[in-house]
Structures are given as structure tokens and as C-alpha cells.
């Protein structure tokens, strides 16, 4: 089931533009942005046990870096997006080097403060960023939705492939060991600070990449991108879909993004509805919706296969 489902999902995603155009295709394009953010954040929180509140901020760094390099540096959009990812990785390296030696809530507190500082910086540096009005950004192939969608899908698949490879590698084994027992891992030779830093930098880079993608498919970046509400949305998506499942978190992102469209009439009350959804998930399916769905599907298959023939 766990092998078939992702393959079916990929086929459905590839065929999606043949059935849905314009509005829903645009919703899917934004959904893919959140899917990259949610899956990379779930890698950090679910696999490593690090709670960062700067994931939206790293997306903002990627978005502004990419936008400014295209506007002022004349760089091509793909190269600028890569530069945005690198910029987010470098900032992630700096924050991680400062905080990941410490234990407890320091990373969460530092990233919270960093996000707010970045938002204020973007708002205040009007000449560079156009402040709260937002910066107009060139679009991928003049905003061709089909190209934007498949670019997002390719980036999303790349994110999942790289992070899955990381989880199943030697590094992934160490990360799980550290999450299970940090002292136990350290006294068996695992350099806990170094591997935490690797996970933090890699996930920050993917957030930056997602930010660059967002900038060039929406055509406008603003400080709204890095506000705490956005971070809360990413957190809700990851928890809802499955904190320890990259694909689950991504599906959570796409589901909540779609739900957002249906709940537009509730305006800001949407966030309260999301909050309630997260609470219900934590209460009734703490591992997330997708892992729970796998469990039910496997039970159903077991029962079905073990039926007595009539």
C-alpha cells in the first residue's frame, strides 16, 4: 500500500492539468509551494525533533533573493531560484551554528525572533523590497500556468526524493537515534551537533527553493510571506497530514490549501477552523491523517485477504 499509493498519486498529479484548468490549477500551484514547505518542515520536526519557527522566513529569504537577483542582477529565473535556496541554506547554517549546540527551546525561540526581525527588515527596507506594498517579480514563462504547475511538481518530487534519500541513509539513521535519545547517540559516536546542522541546513535550503518558486509563479512577494500566521499554517499542514511522514505532510498542505479556498467566506476565521482541525488530529490521530489511513487500509486488506472463500 505504502509503495502503490505514492505512485498512484504521482500519476494523478501528472494528469491533473488535463482535468482542471485556470482557477484550480492555480490553487494546485500554490498547494505545491506549501507541500514543499510542509514536507521539509515535517522532516525537521518529525524525524529530527527540531522545532523551527523560521521555515516561512527561509521561504521569504529564497523568494526575495531570487526576485532581487532577477530584477537587479539579470539572472535567469532557474539560477536565481537556486541562489535563493543557497541563501536560505547559508542563513540556516548561521542560525543553526549559533543555537544547535544548546538544548531545550533555544532553537524555537531564536527562530521565532529571527522571523520577526526579518519581517520588520523587509517592511522597513522600502527602497530594496518595496516594503509592505510588495515587490513585483517576473513570472516563469510569463505566467504560463501549465509550466508553473509542472515546475512546482518537479520541485516537490525533488524535495521528496532528496529528503527520503536522506532519511534512509546513514545520516537518517543517526537522526532517528538522536531523536530517540540524544545522550545515547552521542556516547555511541554520533556527532549530534553536526548532524542536526545538516538536517537544519538542508530543510532550510528546500524552504528557500519553495520561496523562489512562489515568487516567480505569483509575481509578487511581500512581508506577508514571513508572518507568523504563515508559519502556523505550515505547522497545521504538517501536523494534520503526519509529522513523521513527508508525503503525509505534503498531502496535509494540499488539503488545507484547497480547504482555504472553500472557507474564504469565513475570512480570518479560517485560521480558527484550522486550529480546531489540528486539535482534533492530535486527539484522534496524533500520527497524522495519512499514516492513520495507511493503518486502516492495511487492516482492511488483511481482513479482505483472510476471508473464507464461499
Amino acid at each position: 500500500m505504502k509503495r502503490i499509493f505514492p505512485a498512484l498519486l504521482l500519476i494523478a498529479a501528472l494528469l491533473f492539468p488535463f482535468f482542471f484548468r485556470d482557477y484550480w490549477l492555480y490553487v494546485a500551484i500554490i498547494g505545491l509551494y506549501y507541500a514543499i514547505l510542509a514536507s521539509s518542515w515535517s522532516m525537521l520536526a518529525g524525524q529530527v525533533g527540531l522545532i523551527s519557527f523560521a521555515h516561512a522566513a527561509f521561504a521569504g529569504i529564497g523568494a526575495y533573493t531570487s526576485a532581487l537577483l532577477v530584477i537587479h542582477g539579470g539572472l535567469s529565473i532557474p539560477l536565481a531560484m537556486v541562489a535563493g535556496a543557497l541563501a536560505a541554506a547559508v542563513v540556516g547554517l548561521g542560525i543553526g551554528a549559533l543555537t544547535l549546540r544548546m538544548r531545550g527551546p533555544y532553537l524555537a525561540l531564536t527562530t521565532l525572533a529571527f522571523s520577526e526581525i526579518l519581517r520588520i527588515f523587509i517592511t522597513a527596507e522600502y527602497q530594496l523590497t518595496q516594503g509592505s506594498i510588495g515587490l513585483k517579480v517576473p513570472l516563469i514563462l510569463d505566467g504560463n500556468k501549465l509550466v508553473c504547475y509542472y515546475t512546482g511538481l518537479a520541485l516537490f518530487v525533488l524535495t521528496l526524493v532528496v529528503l527520503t534519500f536522506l532519511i534512509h541513509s546513514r545520516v537518517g539513521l543517526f537522526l532517528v537515534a538522536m531523536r530517540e535519545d540524544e545522550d545515547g547517540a552521542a556516547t555511541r559516536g554520533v556527532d549530534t551537533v553536526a548532524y542536526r546542522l545538516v538536517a537544519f541546513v538542508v530543510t532550510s535550503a528546500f524552504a528557500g527553493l519553495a520561496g523562489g518558486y512562489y515568487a516567480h509563479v505569483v509575481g509578487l512577494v511581500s512581508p506577508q510571506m514571513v508572518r507568523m500566521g504563515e508559519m502556523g499554517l505550515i505547522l497545521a499542514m504538517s501536523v494534520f497530514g503526519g509529522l513523521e511522514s513527508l508525503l503525509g505532510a505534503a498531502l496535509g498542505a494540499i488539503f488545507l490549501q484547497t480547504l482555504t479556498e472553500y472557507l474564504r467566506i469565513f475570512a480570518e476565521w479560517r485560521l480558527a477552523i484550522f486550529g480546531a482541525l489540528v486539535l482534533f488530529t492530535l486527539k484522534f490521530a496524533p500520527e497524522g491523517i495519512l499514516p492513520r489511513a495507511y493503518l486502516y487500509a492495511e487492516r482492511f486488506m488483511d481482513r479482505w485477504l483472510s476471508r473464507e472463500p464461499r
Partner: protein
Amino acid sequence: MMLTVDQVTKNFGGLQALSGVSVSFPRGEFVGLIGPNGSGKTTLLNCITGLYRPDAGAVRLGEENISHLPPHRIYRRGIGRTFQISKVFNRLTVLDNLRIPALTEGRLKRHEVNDRSREILEQIKLEHHGRTNAENLSGGQKKLLELGMIMMTDPRFLLLDEPFGGVHPELKSQLEEYLCQLNREGKTIVLVSHEMPSVFKICQRLVVLDHGVLVTEGSPEAVRSDERVINAYLGGNYDEA
């Protein structure tokens, strides 16, 4: 190469957990580290293995001061330890638990790591549990797994914190024999245990701590009859003895 603890002091707020403790562990010796609850035995192991940094004094491996090194570097210098409450990785399989210490060194190839894991599994009598998640093992089996984990990289020093806790009596005698065998092969073993019959049976030298102070050290026979040790265990004041 000798492991030396030199005048190590460790405080937690107003509590002095270790007070100027000096003790040496020469190569190939089997040392028992004993003392009542709260005497500082585990704190001393934490200072040696880098989980705590001493407030004063030094831990030396040969001539090198290793007090400032992080735990993973100390492990890679050949000092392995187990914990009073087993620190195995519950959601990983027994085989993955064993593979982790070997993979951190990076000098063994994947098939060598797998071969070594199977060899250790047999030594610790868990050969039928390789694919079992560690959370499904009994308390005693987890103790054995911990010992197996540190044995993966063949360390020179084994610091064992209550390795007999929760182990079935039959398994305990096997474990005693296994430790003696490792010692005969040249491993230096520091054993922290409240299982006095085992300690007196297998250790060559005993070091006694009480209230963070080294009370005495010597052969099991000498320590058994030392009045300061009796007082420490029964609650007397050894200064008056």
C-alpha cells in the same frame, strides 16, 4: 594506556556531586566502582564520557586531557559506556541499534558492519531478535543490546552502569562470564553495580565513593572489611571511624 581521573569536582547548584576525586584505571584491569545511592558513581562516568564537563580537575587518556571533548570524540578514542536506564533506540531494530556505532566511524564497509553486527548478536545471545524493534525487548535484553552496541567498535575501555539490573539470574551468570572473557582479552572494565556478589566475584579492584568523595580503594577482600565502607553503606560517618 591508562585512563586517569585527576582531582575531578562537579557541582550542581549547591550540591557537590564529586569532590576532588582522583582514580586511575590501568589497562586490562577489572574495576568495581561502588557506593551507596547518590554517592557520585554515575556522575563520575558522565564526567569521563563527556556528558558532564568537570568544574575542576581533568580526565586524561594517557597524556591527553579529554575533559573538554564532546561525547562522540571520547567514544571514538575507545571509551564505551552503558547506562543505568538503558539508552537503546527503541523505534529502531536491534540490528540498526548495533549498526549505528560502527557507521559513525566510517572506516568499516557496509558488509563489514553487517557481519560484525551478526557476530555481536550471537555474543549477546540476541541472534533471533535482529529484526525486532528494541522497544519490544525485555529490560535485561536491552542491557545486553547496549553492551553489544559499544562492542561494535571494539573499545579499549568499557564503563558499565548497572549492567545486571533487570537481567534474568541465568543470563546474569552468562553476562558475568562474557565480561570476564572481554577482560581476559585485554579490555579495561569499570563496573558500577549494586549487585555485590557479582562485584566481589569478578572485580580485581574496588573503588568506593560516598557523597562525592573517594572513600577507599583496594582489593575486594580489603574493601569488604574496611570500616569506612561499612559505615558508608550503613549510614555512619567515616570521618569518625
